[in-house]
């Protein structure tokens, strides 16, 4: 390997690592707040990328009827809950927000000349029909069992992953897709030629991470999420709704996932099932952070990206094996240094 190749691989690794870092932050967030090990995180990457590809090619977002269907389901479930609690005044808002709004959105988007819209608008439209799936999935799959064990939540998460991959195949087909880069071309920085898209990815990832940090430090919702992560019962006693916290962090994680997909799709072909492995690599990063530390998770994710990139050069057939084997020394270290084991019965 000469220096040029090494630089190229490093660039590749950092690009992917930035994406994994975003995903691992979302995973740590979801786990800390809801105790869900969010296996379907990666599906949002594929959904985001493939929806953008569809809109960019002038097609309607394929998931729009799913958003409408799940929206109606959420409206029904929430209405039943509202009636049971005797809070009928909430009904119009519940129905409007969950069922009517998505239908209106579908009506509007059908009138638009999708192919001719500005790139940014296309991105927003793609996100508008993927991100709502996050809170919808939380409401329908996780909220009813929010108090169950981590194990049960994990099995539900895997079931959701299965459903989303199967539906992904139906919506997007087996063909992979790419989208045009945000900006064509690149720039020569010292000895390396860097694509503009790479700069976009690393820059936006850094901005998003900074944005999340500000959100957690300074906004009231961010503080509510942090409080819930530290002590669910205590947060609830302070008037923080666990359901709201859950929905909020599933929305954030869907946004992060879908946007990561749109970021990466110009440089990698995305298939309906690509998301799973991408999400798992985010997980490897998150595990390096012990599923609790944001900075360690992000650093771990970048390490995963670099390892993947270099191993694809030396032993491309085994790159997945090498990446996933990385968790063994990490887990071994954690296992030998932890004394306390979570005792679920006390929760």
């Amino acid at each position: 390997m000469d220096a040029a190749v090494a630089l190229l691989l490093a660039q590749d690794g950092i690009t992917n690592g930035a994406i994994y870092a975003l995903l691992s932050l979302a995973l740590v967030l979801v786990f800390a707040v809801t105790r869900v090990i969010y296996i379907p995180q990666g599906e949002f990457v594929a959904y985001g990328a493939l929806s953008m590809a569809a809109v960019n090619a002038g097609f309607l977002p394929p998931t729009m009827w799913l958003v409408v269907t799940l929206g109606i389901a959420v409206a029904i479930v929430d209405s039943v809950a509202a009636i049971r609690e005797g809070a009928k005044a909430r009904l119009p808002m519940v129905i409007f927000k969950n069922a009517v709004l998505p239908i209106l959105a579908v009506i509007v988007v059908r009138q638009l000349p999708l192919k001719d819209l500005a790139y940014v608008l296309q991105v927003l439209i793609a996100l508008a029909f993927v991100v709502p799936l996050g809170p919808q999935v939380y409401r329908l799959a996780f909220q009813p069992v929010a108090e169950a064990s981590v194990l049960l939540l994990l099995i539900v998460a895997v079931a959701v992953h299965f459903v989303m991959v199967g539906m992904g195949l139906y919506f997007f087909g087996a063909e992979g897709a790419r989208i045009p880069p945000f900006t064509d071309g690149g720039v020569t920085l010292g000895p390396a030629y860097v694509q503009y898209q790479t700069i976009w990815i690393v820059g936006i990832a850094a901005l998003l991470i900074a944005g999340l940090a500000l959100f957690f430090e300074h906004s009231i919702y961010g503080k509510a999420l942090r409080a819930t992560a530290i002590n669910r019962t205590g947060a609830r006693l302070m008037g923080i709704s666990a359901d709201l916290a859950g929905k909020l962090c599933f929305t954030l994680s869907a946004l992060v996932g879908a946007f990561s997909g749109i970021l990466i799709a110009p440089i990698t072909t995305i298939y309906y099932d690509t998301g799973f492995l991408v999400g798992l690599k985010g997980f490897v990063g998150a595990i390096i952070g012990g599923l609790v530390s944001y900075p360690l998770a992000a650093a771990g994710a970048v390490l995963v990206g670099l390892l993947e990139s270099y191993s694809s050069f030396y032993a491309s057939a085994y790159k997945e094996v090498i990446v996933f084997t990385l968790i063994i020394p990490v887990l071994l270290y954690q296992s030998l240094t932890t004394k306390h084991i979570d005792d679920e019965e006390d929760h």
Partner: protein
Amino acid sequence: MAALLTSNRVLIAFLLGLAMLPLFAAQFTVTIVNYIGLYALVALGLVLLTGIGGLTSFGQAAFVGLGAYATAYLTTRHGMSPWGTLIVGMVITTAVSLALGFITLRLSGHFLPLGTIAWGISLYFIFGNVQALGGHGGIDGIPPVDLFGLELGSSRAFFYVIWITLLAAIITTQNMLDSREGRAMRCLRAMTMTEAMGINTLRYRMVLFMIAAQFACVSGWLYAHLQRFVNPTPFSLGQGIEYLFMAVLGGASAVWGAVFGATAVSFLKEWLQDWLPKLLGATGNFEMVVFGLLTIVVLHRARDGLWPILLRVFAIVAPQRQQMREVEPALPLPRRDAPAPGSEVLRVIEVTKRFGGLVANNKMNLTVRAGEVMALIGPNGAGKSTLFNCISGVNPATEGEIRFMGKRIDQLGSREIAKLGMSRSFQHVRLNQDMTVLENAAIGAHLRGRKNFVQSAWRLDREEERRLLWEAAHQLQRCGLGEHLFDTCGSLPLGKQRIVEIARALCSDPTLLLLDEPAAGLRHLEKRALAELLAKLRGEGMAILLVEHDMDFVMGLADRVLVMEFGEYLAEGLPQEIQTNPKVLEAYLGGVDE
């Protein structure tokens, strides 16, 4: 008609039908029932891991692949006998499962499933990329299994191999669960309690994971010799998740749930694969959407899966007569040497416990002697239960020294302390609500047995088992629970459940008994019976330390009383001294206005 339908007869009819199946059924049916047997064996392992152990694995398909590839490679490339390759496969499986378990099982419960995802993906890529294993093309030409000169080449003949293996696995699993080590496995989720009974929970989690892996490995070996060809596809992570769905849908809490789950999923899959592509106008694995949704609904609505629902329906259709059960008399278990009456059993010296900045216990001192009841009282939040947790090693002290029977124990875990002869009850009852009262009490006698899970699987533990259960029944009878031996703990009122905890503690033949609010929730007569029992135990030389709020109970029973307030020592003395101590009165009743 209903009387004809007993569960035994249904089982016999099922087995007879199964035995006749290859003689009459179409090839297609034989094939699918063969696969059901293979799937059910893997799902059975997951029932053990998930339903019993509270853990799970997504990598079982990789263990199936390990068994299949081990035999495929060694029989075709090295001419080994299939029986030899079975052993090789199982040895490798043991090594891998122990290594994975060693790495992940000390951590929180979710690290094992995450580790198995990584393992499942990695092995799948290895199968597909190693040229010696045939790459993605796989290995063909695997020889049939040869049993005493009989070549089991046809799938009809192999049907018997598969189903006899599965039934043997089910029977040995049921035997294992109905034994000393099985009871420990069934209590693994209540880790604090289980460890306090002297049970090494890490060991049992490892054992469960290893057994589950072995079942998967054997299923893979059978698969390879049924199919006579292997490629990586059936050993993917997706298949590993499907195995988990079988166990969850069928019912992870019962061994037959595995068979039911495998059957239901197999037939449903066949049917869906026919219909869904026509319905949707596209080809693909759309049945996974249905399985995913079904799993979510089952976990929301019926966490124990569909098998218990089926049993309930059966119980309505054909009510079963309650069987009379008795505990067989057996030789009493050997007892440990009792300390001399009046000798010091426990000494707590300057013990401090901090939770962050909060000092829950500050420089506490106390002693307990053989043949005395020492009561620890104080207002709520005084730190009594915290001190109990320090003494029993459940949550060790930050500073200070604790001596039990002359040995320093403040650095020992609760398991080690239990071995020395200390046993306890918990303020919040920690019983397995689904096990019978007898089984719950027998958990306490765990350390007095030696037989392991392999011996119990093959029923080589029956003599010891009788003695353990006889001891449990004896202690329950002493505690006045003789009529509830075969009731599930969940069906008892809370007060009686506390008494079960005392009986469980007594089953360990303790030198020192720690009781955390034993009289709470008891009625007047029950309290009197409890006081009599404790007085009798004291008479036999047992040392008893108890926390209690019922002052009549405490003052009538205790030899000495120690009062705590705000984590500190307030007063100590005879019951009548404490009752008139002004500091104690102030702590309990507030200051007296002059």
